[in-house]
């Protein structure tokens, strides 16, 4: 039973008895990943309520990891059933979500990224233990005022904000839906579901709480602002096409729509609705991916948020948002390619160049990585613009390659600490290579991957994206991308020089020895760098098969 039918059923006001309301047909199996994660999140909330504080941490961690693992298993199962392939991919849950290659691929990526990110959330060895209690990177009590007695008391009592786990699970749930959303309403809801928990997570840093809260405020206000734009865009698109389902809008845009009623005929004629609406929605998504000029929240939020959260955001949010963007552009607006392409060209160019240039003069490692993530967003946009199956799969590959490395890099940042918590100022990193060669070497590997040096994942991804772009005729874009990556190389190398070739400072930071959790996170990052860099074929195939959207 199709959506319009339902509506007509509602609109015909009580003509005949409303005896039989057909229950909507939901393919629970196919959307199980989302359901599992959301369920786990809710159970987590219950844990907060009922599990004794001592056991809470372990319960939450295990729950979260199990939930994510189970969801990933579900994704794999679906992919194994062939939902990834164009033949079997289709729209589930009354047209709300798509179950197709890109969706599954990105969901899988998000879930795995989330797992390694959760590991960093759970890390409790870095901060010196408060009394008898080991502590993680999160505030003892989010509500307690920074520096207040309440906070001290909370610390003494050994409180820990275990809510972060259910929160992150909710966020993950939102992220899973985001790239799969197949109508604008779902898109909007998913956006909010993934954003709101992140706002909170940003505010929960144990050290430097003031800037943590500031980050949260900025992120929240700007995020709300942008989602308002997105929503207005949705409204306009709805006004244009009389529907919010992607397929329907696409038809209207193409003009291949059947049974046009007069109202629709009237709005269809009005391109302004379509164009402005599309522009606003796209803008909302560009905000999430942190493209210039919607990027300005990125450095501040990345710097202020607790580093594990930053890593999680930087990786998972980008993946989800790019997934949504891809689907929007390829499923809803293919008919509009000639309109959005030039605009996206512009955005991609200033994003690549701007991110790279501003990064040159950064002095805080987290802000540096923030700008680098902006530049990377630009590179990925170049792939998005390719507007070809090749482009899709290259973007998928890039996202997979990029996300793990990002989480790993931020995990390394959490290790370098001094009295005031993490020593994020670059000057403190001087001579790190002498103090602890291994950590410095690992971080250098990540930086080289970001810089796109051959034999690292970064290069494979960049090559795939640029190849697709060039094949799509965007040669100037490739050249600009190459130039900006040359600029970018400069500041990555600056950090390496700092770590290896400058003398260590006497008051330099110490490198904390992490628990296996963080080690795993970092290990995964390194592994991805090397595997994707040296033998990427398998993953390229995967991304290649996942390269087609369901309509």
């Amino acid at each position, binding site marked *: 039973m199709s959506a319009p039918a339902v*509506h007509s059923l509602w609109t015909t006001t009580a003509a005949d008895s409303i005896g039989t309301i057909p229950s909507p047909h939901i393919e629970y199996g196919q959307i199980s990943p989302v359901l599992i994660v959301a369920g786990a999140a809710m159970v987590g909330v219950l844990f907060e309520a009922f599990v004794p504080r001592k056991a809470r941490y372990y319960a939450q961690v295990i729950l979260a990891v199990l939930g994510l693992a189970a969801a990933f298993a579900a994704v794999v199962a679906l992919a194994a059933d062939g939902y990834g392939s164009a033949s079997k991919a289709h729209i589930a849950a009354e047209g709300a979500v798509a179950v197709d290659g890109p969706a599954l691929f990105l969901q899988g990526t998000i879930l795995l990224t989330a797992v390694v990110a959760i590991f960093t959330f759970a890390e409790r060895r870095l901060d010196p233990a408060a009394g008898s209690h080991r502590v993680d990177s999160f505030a003892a009590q989010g509500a307690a005022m920074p520096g207040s007695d309440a906070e001290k008391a909370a610390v003494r009592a050994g409180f820990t904000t275990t809510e972060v786990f259910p929160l992150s699970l909710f966020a993950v749930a939102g992220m899973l839906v985001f790239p799969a959303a197949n109508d604008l309403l779902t898109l909007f809801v998913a956006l909010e579901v993934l954003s709101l928990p992140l706002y909170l997570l940003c505010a929960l840093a144990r050290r430097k709480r003031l800037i943590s809260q500031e980050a949260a405020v*900025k992120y*929240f*206000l700007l995020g709300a602002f942008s989602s308002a734009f997105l*929503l207005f865009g*949705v409204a306009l698109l*709805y006004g244009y096409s009389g*529907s919010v389902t992607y397929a329907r809008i696409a038809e209207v845009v193409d003009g291949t729509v059947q049974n046009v009623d007069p*109202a629709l005929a009237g709005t269809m004629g009005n391109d302004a609705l379509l164009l402005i609406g599309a522009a606003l929605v796209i803008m909302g998504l560009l905000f999430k991916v942190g493209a210039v000029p919607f990027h300005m929240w990125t450095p501040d939020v990345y710097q202020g948020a607790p580093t594990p959260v930053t890593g999680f955001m930087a990786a998972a949010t980008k993946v989800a948002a790019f997934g949504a963007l891809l689907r929007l552009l390829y499923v809803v607006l293919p008919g509009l390619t000639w309109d959005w392409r030039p605009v996206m060209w512009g955005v991609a160019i200033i994003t690549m160049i701007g991110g790279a240039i501003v990064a040159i003069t950064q002095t805080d490692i987290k802000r540096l990585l923030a700008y680098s993530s902006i530049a990377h967003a630009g590179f990925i946009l170049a792939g998005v613009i390719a507007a070809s199956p090749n482009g899709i799969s290259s973007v998928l590959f890039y996202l997979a390659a990029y996300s793990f490395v990002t989480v790993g890099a931020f995990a390394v940042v959490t290790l370098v600490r001094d009295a005031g918590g993490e020593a994020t100022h670059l000057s403190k990193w001087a001579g790190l290579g002498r103090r602890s060669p291994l950590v410095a070497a690992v971080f250098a590997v990540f930086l080289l991957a970001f810089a796109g040096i051959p034999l690292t994942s970064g290069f494979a991804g960049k090559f795939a994206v640029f190849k697709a772009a060039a094949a799509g005729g965007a040669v100037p874009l490739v050249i600009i991308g190459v130039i900006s990556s040359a600029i970018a190389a400069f500041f990555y190398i600056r950090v390496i020089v700092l770590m290896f070739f400058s003398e260590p400072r006497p008051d330099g930071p110490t490198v904390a020895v992490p628990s296996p959790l963080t080690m795993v996170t970092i290990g995964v990052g390194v592994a991805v760098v090397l595997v994707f860099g040296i033998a990427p074929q398998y993953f390229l195939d995967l991304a290649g098969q996942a390269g087609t959207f369901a309509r």
Partner: protein
Amino acid sequence: MNPVYYLYLASLLFTIGAAGVLIRRNAIVVFMCVELMLNACNLAFVAFSRLHGNLDGQIIAFFTMVVAAAEVVVGLAIIVSMFRARHSASVDDASLMKL
């Protein structure tokens, strides 16, 4: 009455909200302006819903309200905690991180 007028009103409200976000300093007020923008969207949805003669728009409006409510919960929590920490709700005071 021509539904287009509702649309104009919606855009007007939206713009007012946006302007408010850009102009006002108090975080709460800024946030309220955002809410105003959301409501402008709702108006637009309902108007279009009527125009197209289907219920989707109205349903979406309900969704929006729920989401807005959720945003209020989160937003107020954050703003209040910030206010308690600095005894000011001015967004401009929250500018430790820059450059």
